[in-house]
């Protein structure tokens, strides 16, 4: 295996070897379904109970408020569609923001087609939602407020506790997509005043294909999946026992590290941000400087395009360099002609949104990794800029926070 430096941990993380070891017996040896009454089944059931307790402990919940799902996308879909359906008779208005993940925006758009009204609050230049705007947007027929905790792309952490308090004052259920925050920073559902909270296993060294939705007792939600009576009749389907056990183990491991790891990562993050700001020209930090996930760095580089930066980093030209894996908000990887809607929502000019690179760290990354990344980045950006027909040093494009007119790419070709 080629040694590499993985810095795309907001996409997914390496499953911890301890997690894999914990899951292992539940494939071949203890393969029973937790719904069955014989010993093999009850073994699986108690393993799930243990995982539920671990996850509840990580987010300050009661185990009975944890519902296992297939991951964050399901949890987000369920929270939005399930609460909207359960409270339809009360009203058909939902509040979210324009810089959310697609697994929030798409269910919202789906409901709009079905007659719901959705308010997409604007974010400021750092990606923050103003809690006052949430207060102003709430109406008598508002049945859900849904806000991301830490943004997956720019890392901005929303004022969740303030928004939660505001929603609670109006008795409006409040959902938080915490897929990027749980396991990375302390999360407490009571401190955040949230009623529903999304968890993803593979974002904090758990397995893929498993997650959870926290649902506070008394919150009404219609099941997304109907069938057997699993998860207290709220989420049907035979339990993904190995996955759930792995998620529980990952929750336990993350909790043990929460006292020191966020600070270590924040220091590494700041080292990378400061180094880029001190050593490079015509760059723009995307997202809030301090209200930011400890593992997220996102920069735009003027005059070049993100996919070519990402590709260059992942295929080093000399053998003594390790491939480095990062991601980009360029249109080239989105499958559309438009770059990241999140960067555009911040007012990042379209051409700079194409030239964005996201670095997302994990507990595996070291200072040495950061230095390897930085020296590779300086070289790659210099090389690509030397090839660029439009890059002009010191064009000051990055300083302006103003938006662009948008992309008429069909006409341009």
């Amino acid at each position: 295996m080629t040694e590499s430096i993985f810095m795309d941990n907001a996409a997914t993380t390496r499953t911890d070897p301890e997690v894999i070891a914990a899951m292992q017996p539940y494939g071949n040896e203890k393969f029973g379904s937790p719904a069955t009454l014989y010993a093999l089944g009850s073994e699986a059931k108690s393993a799930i109970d243990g995982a539920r307790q671990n996850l509840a402990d990580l987010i300050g919940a009661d185990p009975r408020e944890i519902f296992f799902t297939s991951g964050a996308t399901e949890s987000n879909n369920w929270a939005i569609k399930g609460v909207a359906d359960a409270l339809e008779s009360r009203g058909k208005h939902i509040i979210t923001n324009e810089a959310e993940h697609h697994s929030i925006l798409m269910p919202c758009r789906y409901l709009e087609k079905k007659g719901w009204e959705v308010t997409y609050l604007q974010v400021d230049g750092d990606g923050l939602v103003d809690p006052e705007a949430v207060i102003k947007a709430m109406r008598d027929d508002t049945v859900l407020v849904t806000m991301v905790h830490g943004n997956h792309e720019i890392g901005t952490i929303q004022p969740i506790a303030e928004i939660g308090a505001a929603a609670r004052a109006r008795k409006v259920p409040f959902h938080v997509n915490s897929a990027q925050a749980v396991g990375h920073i302390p999360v407490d559902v009571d401190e955040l005043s949230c009623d529903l909270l999304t968890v993803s296993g593979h974002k904090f060294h758990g397995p893929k294909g498993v997650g959870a939705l926290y649902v506070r007792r008394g919150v009404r939600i219609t099941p997304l999946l109907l069938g057997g009576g699993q998860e207290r009749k709220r989420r049907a389907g035979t339990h993904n026992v190995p996955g759930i056990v792995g998620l529980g183990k990952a929750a336990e491991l993350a909790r043990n590290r929460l006292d020191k790891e966020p600070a270590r990562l924040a220091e590494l993050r700041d080292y990378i941000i400061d180094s880029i700001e001190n050593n490079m020209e015509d760059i723009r930090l995307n997202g809030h400087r301090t209200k930011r996930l400890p593992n997220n760095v996102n920069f735009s580089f003027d005059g070049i395009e993100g996919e070519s930066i990402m590709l260059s980093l992942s295929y080093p030209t000399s053998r003594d360099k390790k491939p480095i894996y990062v991601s980009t908000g360029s249109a080239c990887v989105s499958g559309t002609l438009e770059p990241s809607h999140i960067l555009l929502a911040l007012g990042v000019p379209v051409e700079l949104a194409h030239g964005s690179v996201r670095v997302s760290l994990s507990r595996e990354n070291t200072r040495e990794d950061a230095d390897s990344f930085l020296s590779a980045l300086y070289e790659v950006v210099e090389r690509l800029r030397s090839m660029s027909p439009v890059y002009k040093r010191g064009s000051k494009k990055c300083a302006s926070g103003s938006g662009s007119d948008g992309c008429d790419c069909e006409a341009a070709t």
Partner: protein
Amino acid sequence: MYTEKVMDHFQNPRNMGEVEDADGVGEVGNPQCGDVMRITIKVDDEERIEDVKFKTLGCGAAIATSSMVTEMAKGKTLDEAEEISKKSVADALGGLPPQKMHCSNLASDGLKKAIEDYRSRS
């Protein structure tokens, strides 16, 4: 996602830069779309492309197709060079992902524009 040939041209681009005292210049694309290509050519007395260089802002496919076009065009007569199509560039690279055929495969257009520019000058 990319063929080895694409990666080779991306990492070791041929004919990168600008021809001095170019006889024709072609620029296509738009920074807002994430792709801009500038092709410069030097044409000899027999209307052959004596030298051709590119500068490109864009993704891996944009850079690789630019490099490939310059390689294909060099030494060709203007009429021959005008025949170079998006498809022939992509084929020479062992294929491109479908979504890249449209947005990042502009190099042959850039070359055509450079030839047009040359012809409009003479």
